[in-house]
């Protein structure tokens, strides 16, 4: 999906993609506005003839609204062609908010989708690592000593004893399993964010065009305002927030974890080194379990645990609190903006009812 978005955007610049519906609808919107103004002018004239002053006041307000709607169309066209021409990705790179794999992003739509894609890849990496660790721990055998038949060779008394010695720290694999059970559904739910980001330019372009046009007519004015708020919220503000928040989480993960990897000598970010990392951690835990001192230095042990703590902690915050904060801002914006410009629309209530 990320490749589709990047490919589509690179084929046509994002500015032209966003303004193409407007460019097609602008003559229609202008014509509709002229027709509405003509009708309102007729009503104003007839109300003067009929002496109905309340009609005149009403018509005056509708004329202002129609002019305002027409001005909004021109403002949107002007803003889009200028705003998306600003090389905003350079600012992101100056702030080190662009992950390594997203350097080729040319606008914040593709950057936000790339950031989310990178984060979900990191989440999938953590899930896979946990699963691999569980499998490896499960393969560690326990030793069962059974002497009954042997003793019977010495004396036919049938004396003997058996004991089972577990070598693997069973609690750890159980905990990893529970963690995997929590992470995987969150990972699946957060895939929805990637779908939403991939559709953001489409939402912005189409709904904004429809909303601006609908706002010209009196009957559909509030509905048009709600569409405009929806397009601005999900089509512009949400990708902007994602590019900031998840850009930081992605670069934070790679920076903070990499520094621990340098000390540990093995890294969770490198798939080829998972085996070494898991076996090293397992060796430490088994050695400690049987009451011995591991042969690895404390600094290296701390670094191995440290990278897991940082990696897991950042993933957990990115899966829970960050989307909550992003949707909080977007929801507030859509409610207040839609109320100011048209009809109040509560996105989270709609989504909550749907869910």
């Amino acid at each position, binding site marked *: 999906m990320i490749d589709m978005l990047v490919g589509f955007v690179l084929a046509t610049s994002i500015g032209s993609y966003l303004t193409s519906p407007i460019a097609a609808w602008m003559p229609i919107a202008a014509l509709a506005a002229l027709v509405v103004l003509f009708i309102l002018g007729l009503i104003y004239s007839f109300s003067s003839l009929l002496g109905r002053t309340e009609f005149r006041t009403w018509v005056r307000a509708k004329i202002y609204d129609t002019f305002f709607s027409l001005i909004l169309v021109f403002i949107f066209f002007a803003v889009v062609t200028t705003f998306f021409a600003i090389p905003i990705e350079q600012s992101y790179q*100056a702030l080190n908010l662009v992950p390594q794999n997203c350097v080729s992003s040319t606008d914040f739509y593709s950057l936000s989708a790339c950031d989310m894609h990178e984060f979900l890849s990191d989440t999938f990496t953590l899930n896979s690592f946990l699963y691999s660790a569980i499998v490896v721990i499960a393969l560690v055998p326990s030793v069962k000593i059974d002497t009954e038949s042997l003793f019977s060779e010495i004396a036919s008394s049938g004396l003997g004893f058996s*004991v089972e010695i577990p070598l693997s*720290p*069973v609690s750890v694999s159980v905990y990893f399993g529970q963690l995997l059970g929590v992470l995987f559904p969150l990972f699946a739910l957060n895939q929805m964010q990637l779908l939403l980001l991939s559709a953001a330019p489409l939402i912005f372009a189409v709904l904004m065009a429809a909303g601006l046009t609908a706002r010209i007519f009196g009957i559909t004015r509030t509905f048009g305002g709600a569409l405009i708020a929806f397009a601005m919220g999900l089509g512009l503000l949400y990708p902007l927030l994602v590019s900031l928040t998840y850009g930081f*989480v992605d670069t*934070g993960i790679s920076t903070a974890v990499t520094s621990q990897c340098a000390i540990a000598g093995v890294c969770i970010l490198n798939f080829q080194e998972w085996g070494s990392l898991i076996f090293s951690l397992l060796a430490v835990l088994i050695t400690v379990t049987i009451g011995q001192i591991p042969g690895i230095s404390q600094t290296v042990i701390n670094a191995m645990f*440290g990278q897991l703590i940082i990696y897991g902690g950042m993933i957990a915050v990115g899966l829970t609190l960050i989307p909550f904060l992003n949707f909080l801002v977007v929801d*507030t914006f859509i409610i207040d903006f839609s109320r100011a410009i048209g009809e109040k629309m509560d996105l989270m209530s709609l989504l*909550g009812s749907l869910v």
Partner: protein
Amino acid sequence: MKGIVLATLFLAFLAISQSASAISFNGLGTALCNNLFNQPITGLGAVANTAYYTPLLQISFLIVIGVLTVLGLTYGIGTAFGIEVLKNFSRTEALESVFNLVLIILIFPGLFALQGISTFLGNIGQEAVLPISQQSGTTTPTYSMQQLCTNYMEQGLSTTLNGVIGLLPCLYYFSTMSTLELSFMPNDFGFSVKPFAGWYPWTQVLNIEVELYILVGGLMSGVSMFLFIIYFLFPIFLYAGILLRSFPWTRAAGGSMLSLFIAFYMIFPALLYPFSSQLSLGPGGNPLFSAVSCPATITLSILQAVTGYSSYLGTSAAIEMQGFVSGLAYSMMQVFGVAIAFIISYDLLERFGDLLGAPSLRSGKLLQKVI
């Protein structure tokens, strides 16, 4: 021969001495927090460098001046044509724009003033809690986000990891010994007995203790990661919020971002600080989790080993559980501290949202839906 070899193996297993703590995670939290919060200005630290955001403030200033100019024109048109709606709109929006100017002037020198407010609040809370903890006069308040991270990671996470490491040998020995089966079956008829099968419930208790340790440790590390994100990322919300608040139509988004900054950058860490500084202390100032321990070293004598374990499962086990629970109670107090700080911050988020032009910032309803 085989029997002698196997018997020797088993005795060797029993003969392994248990060290009190083979490894220790003391220092892990401090090292991690140093690594997280001391990012180079040319790297991840750039995002928290407020000097980068000065152009945003300048743009915001220009926008506010532009908006005030347009509002003046609108007021003039409203006065000339007798349009009360325009006049009222101009009056309301002019006040909001003046408020924006005040915000820009306050933020222009940098975040020092705001960080000073957080430090003041955090230190006030610390001073209030110190007499209660019987540690009065022993600690000088040193509020900072890095100190908060260190408190949670070093005293919370490191302590819980040490607790887990301390419990693993116990778990190992009790799990093993509970499977020991002695049999007497001449001519395949007789009886077998597991003398230590009764220790199995105790292994379940130890498993629960390990899981609770890991749960608390996970929470501590999650809070620390959240503080790391707040410290570096939330200044962007401040400056972007002021910029968005300059436009009348994006005032809601700007107001919600400003509210997030105030609630979570300034208030949330200040509320956490007094709780976090008490992490290492239990009743009477005793360190947490100190009573968790396995029995002392065992010898080649099986009888002595058995006796040692059996006596442990009397009074010593009860003391161990009591020590674990009292220590865990103090950790759970930290969980409550995080929850209280979160709830107060969310409430303040709504209040500041009302003040800053985002009246629909009702996080409680959204939080309920998410939960």
